[in-house]
């Protein structure tokens, strides 16, 4: 065989090999291009959505921890990310027209997997503080008990003082929202005992007093705020305590007014028309006005002349603003200009203004 014949045969076989390569690549590319329309067509044959149902195959955190085989940190991260995604996805059910979330449109039943997923995350990695804290905030939107249980779980396993302070503070905040003031005060008390800085100690102490006030324990509130006012290292905390004491004094003053109004009603079978009509009773009984701790109320004693100096006999509250009297309901409340704290359920709420009525 001549060399030219060999070269020609080589060229031919090389060409043939190249052609085969083109064929293979053609098949691969066409095949890949076909996959998408085929899958779309296939999915369309199902009447219902084929999206995998939201399921937790393993609900026990302990089992998941055992099955993580040393990769527990990674597994807890995966569960945490899954929890965040789940919560975020479910929130879309409560979206308003303005793009904000209206939690009243959502219930515990809308997120059945939220609690188990948080439970797994924190069981696999008991030190995952963010899962306790943020998870409790998620849960508190629907289920206070579950949120508090999650925080208690975190508190039980943590030993770091700063972390425990944060968890107890969160516990107090959720109790406050849940209107469990006794529990709230206790939680803030624990947080205050664990605080590392004077600032933290002061604000948690303020919260203990505030919770006690809201819970109706005015006596303890007085004592707590007075101690805080005398001992607080930060001016802000001291002023906060003063403000809260002012609120307590005002509450006692309004209670005394309520007693006088009741007395007036007994005598005249009607409510007094205004403060001026009540004034003679105030003068007659002001020596009986005491605060919760049994001390004379300044409004009716040493401050009487200054705070009762208005021509219409409207007394001034501790912030210097006139009290508001509602002759229809026969109750005394704070005026809109008052700076007295009013986070308490207002016993004598102001009537809606004309503007409010129009709206």
């Amino acid at each position, binding site marked *: 065989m001549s060399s030219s014949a060999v070269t020609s045969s080589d060229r031919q076989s090389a060409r043939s090999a190249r052609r085969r390569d083109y064929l293979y690549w053609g098949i691969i590319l066409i095949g890949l291009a076909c996959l998408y329309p085929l899958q779309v067509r296939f999915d369309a044959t199902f009447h219902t959505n084929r999206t995998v149902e939201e399921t937790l195959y393993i609900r026990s955190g302990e089992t998941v921890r055992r099955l993580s085989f040393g990769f527990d940190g990674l597994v807890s991260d995966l569960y945490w990310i899954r929890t965040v995604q789940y919560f975020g996805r479910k929130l879309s059910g409560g979206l308003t027209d303005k793009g904000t979330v209206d939690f009243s449109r959502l219930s515990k039943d809308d997120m059945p997997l939220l609690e188990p997923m948080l439970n797994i995350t924190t069981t696999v990695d008991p030190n995952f*503080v963010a899962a306790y804290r943020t998870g409790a905030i998620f849960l508190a939107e629907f289920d206070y008990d579950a949120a508090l249980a999650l925080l208690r779980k975190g508190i039980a396993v943590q030993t770091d003082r700063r972390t425990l302070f944060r968890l107890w503070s969160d516990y107090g905040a959720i109790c406050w929202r849940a209107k469990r003031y006794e529990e709230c005060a206790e939680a803030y008390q624990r947080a205050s005992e664990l605080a590392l800085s004077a600032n933290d100690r002061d604000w948690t102490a303020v919260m203990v007093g505030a919770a006690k006030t809201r819970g109706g324990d005015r006596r303890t509130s007085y004592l707590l705020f007075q101690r805080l006012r005398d001992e607080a290292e930060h001016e802000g905390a001291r002023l906060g305590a003063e403000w809260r004491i002012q609120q307590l004094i005002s509450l006692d003053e309004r209670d005394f007014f309520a007693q006088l109004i009741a007395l007036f009603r007994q005598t005249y079978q009607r409510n007094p028309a205004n403060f001026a009509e009540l004034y003679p009773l105030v003068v007659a009984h002001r020596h009986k006005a005491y605060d919760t701790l049994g001390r004379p109320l300044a409004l009716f004693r040493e401050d009487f002349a200054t705070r009762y100096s208005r021509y219409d006999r409207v007394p001034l509250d501790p912030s210097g603003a006139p009290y508001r009297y509602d002759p229809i309901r026969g109750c005394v409340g704070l005026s809109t200009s008052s700076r007295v704290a009013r986070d308490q359920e207002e016993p004598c709420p102001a009537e809606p203004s004309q503007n409010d009525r129009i709206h």
Partner: protein
Amino acid sequence: MKQILTVALNTFRESVRDKVLYNLVVAVLILIAASLLIGELSINQERKAMVDLGLSTLLLFGYLIAVFIGTGLVYKEIERRTIYTVLAKPIRRYEFILGKFLGLSATLLVNCTVMVVALIVALLYVRRPTDPSPLGILPAAFLLYVELLLATALALLFSSFTTPALATFFSIVGYLVCNFTPDIKLFADILNVEAYPSLRLTQVILWTLYYTLPNLTNFNFITRTAHGIPITGEQFGLACVYGLVYLCILLSLTIYVFERRNFK
């Protein structure tokens, strides 16, 4: 010693030729992708997720290398009959085994070092002022390296008397069992031997297993490190000593088996 180093160097070169270190590219890509994505998904838990992912990747890839390379180390020499050539030279069997072990350990060291450097860079990228120093992961990474050395020694032991397929199977099962050891003790502790005295034997067996099987959880500080909880000097020291003791046991056992092996 020279013979050991020669075998070690050759084993290392063989690993490089086998493109074992290519896994580093994959690992680094995972870390970069994770550093970009995780921040969006985890609500300010970037650092924790990065450390978890980075150190878990190190452990997983290291373990795969240790098992799949380690189990073939001796068997391949026997299969190719190169063992005859090697042992015909002035080299003792224990030197051969130690050389193989050190060679693979060097491969793992390069692997771990590159991954840890990549992880530190990724952590610097996502770092916030309140985060602990990225260098804080070094003790945990070192202990994972010790764990990988144990895995290598275990794979080498299996490789010295059985086929790579079985050795791989044994190594993987070994890893799973050795991660269960704390549960073995828990199980032993909760057995009600007062009510059922016959369970005493089971309890003793379980306790024996707990104290004799390699406890891999001793080296796993990934989660604690991710939370910035430091490893105490005592924990670090004890884990290193434990690893060293177990390495001596496994390597001695491997040499014992290999010394008695008939290659005819």
